[in-house]
């Protein structure tokens, strides 16, 4: 009897109330084909593949420039292949799609508050479009002069 009174008091174990497993419906691999909104989302994400394709093309161009005038001429010829032109036009659509969705999303990622109120979205996305136009004009000038 006296021995039990000298035992240290351990904290009570944490009991949780019984709860059945939360129901999680199994999602099909083809969930994104169900709605146009879902498909649009997946297409937006797949635009990144065409971004990577552009980088590959650019690296090939730089490699061709290192190779000399003949290598560059050969590169220009490859770019004129109808399949390449078709692929690049498709890429261009996806990349412009990326740009527009990116600029329309940027205000949600960078909410700016001034005087306690959030700035309207257009004040973040409009400068981005302007920057796009200015940069494009500048690069045209650099390359075409």
């Amino acid at each position, binding site marked *: 009897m006296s021995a039990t009174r000298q035992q240290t008091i351990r904290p009570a174990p944490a009991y949780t109330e019984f709860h059945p497993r939360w129901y999680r419906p199994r*999602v099909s*691999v083809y969930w*994104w084909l169900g709605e146009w909104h879902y498909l649009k989302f*997946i297409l937006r*994400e*797949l635009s*990144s*593949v065409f*971004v*990577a394709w*552009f*980088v*590959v*093309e*650019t*690296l090939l*161009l*730089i*490699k061709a*420039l*290192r190779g*000399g*005038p003949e290598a*560059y*001429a050969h590169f*220009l010829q490859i*770019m*004129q292949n109808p399949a*390449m*032109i078709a692929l*690049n*036009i498709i*890429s*261009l659509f996806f*990349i*412009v799609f*990326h*740009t527009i969705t*990116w*600029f329309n999303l940027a205000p949600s*990622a960078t909410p700016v508050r001034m005087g306690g109120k959030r700035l309207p979205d257009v004040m973040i996305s409009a400068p*981005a479009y302007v*920057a*796009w136009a200015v*940069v*494009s004009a500048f*690069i*045209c000038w*650099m*390359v*075409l002069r």
Partner: protein
Amino acid sequence: MTKHATNEPFFWILFSAGGMMAAIFIPIHLLLFGVAFPLGWFKAPSYDQLMSLVSMPLVRIYLFILCSLPLFHWAHRFRYTLYDGLKVKHLNELIFAICYGGATLGTIIAAYLLWNIR
């Protein structure tokens, strides 16, 4: 129940920077070199013209950033597309290695190609 700290913000920053580069700079490049020049809308720049441009260190730094950051943008986005779109979370490590490894490889290739161009 707080989530433990991850490296996610680092990769998200690369994704974000790459996305901004891709959004602003890639369309005009692709329009010019992928569509306009091959279709003959404008005369493609000559070899000497491009070489004089590319010999400027600033242009090479710009091209390096243009090649590297969008690759990391692709890596991050593609990785999540595979997770969410194709539901392949069980291949986590492999997808991670292929995506960011590929982006790193592309960056190294870009640095090697752009280091010096005669």
